């Protein structure tokens, strides 16, 4: 029975992971929706460049992304100093830094499905909304966005999963500090570094898998609900 109880460090790592992933998702989602919409609907100079930039964290080994984050957002980095001076905001070796790393790494996974969803929406429906007097923002809020919701949800699932599992950029950017930046993924790594850590590693693997399963099932339910709402079935 004791096997099924979580140890305090496991709880710590799990709740930290959830906090980090949820924060990363919550902050990057609005940005991703904006970016996805912009990439789908607007033509502007630098379109291709922006798109490439977003995908960079996928192409680079995570460690490199972590280094870049350290250089830019670290205590000695320009953005890091600016943010800490102006807003008292620090990403240095704390859970917010972990969230930043997870967010950056997950961003392309979030943007791509969202962009595809926006591209698939018939602009004629938006035309109809506008002709009924809805301002652009309202049209977006009550027509475009709800119709893109399955894509947004799809992206969010990918991003949340990635944020839960992110390792390389996180350990490089914010190190592996228990209680602060040691997420489930990092705890799992730490366990593998310990000859006696096999049981621990196994347990952490199970926990990670369970969380992922839960999140995915939840997202499936949500998606089914959405599909029903759009009228694949009535009521």
């Amino acid at each position, binding site marked *: 029975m004791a096997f099924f109880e979580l140890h305090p460090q496991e709880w710590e790592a799990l709740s930290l992971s959830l906090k980090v992933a949820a924060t990363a998702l919550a902050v990057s989602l609005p940005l991703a929706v904006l970016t996805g919409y912009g990439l789908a609907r607007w033509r502007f100079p630098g379109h291709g460049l922006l798109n490439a930039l977003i995908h960079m964290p996928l192409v680079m080994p995570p*460690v490199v992304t972590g*280094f870049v984050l*350290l*250089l830019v957002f*670290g*205590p*000695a*980095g320009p953005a890091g100093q600016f943010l800490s001076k102006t807003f008292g905001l620090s990403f*240095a*070796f704390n859970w917010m830094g972990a969230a930043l790393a997870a967010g950056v790494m997950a961003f392309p996974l979030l943007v791509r499905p969202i962009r595809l969803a926006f591209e698939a929406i018939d602009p004629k429906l938006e035309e109809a909304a506008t002709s009924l007097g809805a301002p652009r923002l309202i049209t977006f809020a009550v027509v475009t966005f709800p119709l893109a919701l399955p894509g947004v949800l799809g992206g969010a699932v990918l991003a949340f999963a990635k944020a839960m599992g992110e390792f390389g950029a996180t*350990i*490089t950017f914010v*190190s*592996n*500090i*228990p*209680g602060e*930046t*040691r997420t489930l993924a990092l705890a799992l790594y*730490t366990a*593998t*570094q*310990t*000859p*006696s*850590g096999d049981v621990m590693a196994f347990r952490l693997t199970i926990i990670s898998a369970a969380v992922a399963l839960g999140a995915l099932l939840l997202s499936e339910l949500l998606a089914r609900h959405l599909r029903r709402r759009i009228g694949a079935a009535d009521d």
Partner: protein
Amino acid sequence: ADKVTVFAAASLTDALSAIGKDFQAETGKEAVFSFAGSGTLARQVEAKAPADLFISADEAWMAYTVEKEAVDPATVRVIAENELVLVGPKGAEKLELTAEAITGRLGDGRLAIADPETVPAGRYGKQSLESTGLWDTVSGKLAPMENVRVALASVARGDTPLGIVYSSDAFVEADVDVLAVFPRESHTPIRYPAALTVGASEGSAAFLEYLSGNAARKRLEEAGFTPAN
């Protein structure tokens, strides 16, 4: 502060965790460890990470932090040493460190080793292989791993018939046997230097001291290290 933050090479995970517990029991101060690769940690210390102590798995990365003025050069001290061994699966026969013996044992398989270019353990391994004249024979049959643990695990599971690891690793892995020990002089000494960072909080020195104490030495020995003199 009643907390000491230690950035330490991942290979020291077991030993340091135990030492940290002892330290807390003794002094009431908590030691918090961030374990990762030495290179990663060195760069983080350079980037003003909130670390009080940096413990590297080799002297190169310690030199790097000294050069970058991230640690206090006056406090650098070696806390442990290690040996390099050739391991094989449990029950395998001892092996001579000769080209024929090794190629014979490898067959189609590869020689697991920590990445000679990125991981300290791999770098030592390469030196030893070179100075024992084995490098030319086996350099094409290496399986450089992300870290020593992976190399160890791959031997333990039988994915690779042979591996080069620290004796500390072999010591705690029940599924491998040490087949040969590389001569001490075949590689630069394997030393684990520790130092206080430039921003170390007061009282961190106590932990650095503690690392050289008897209790810590015992823990290091239990984990297969050779405590420094």
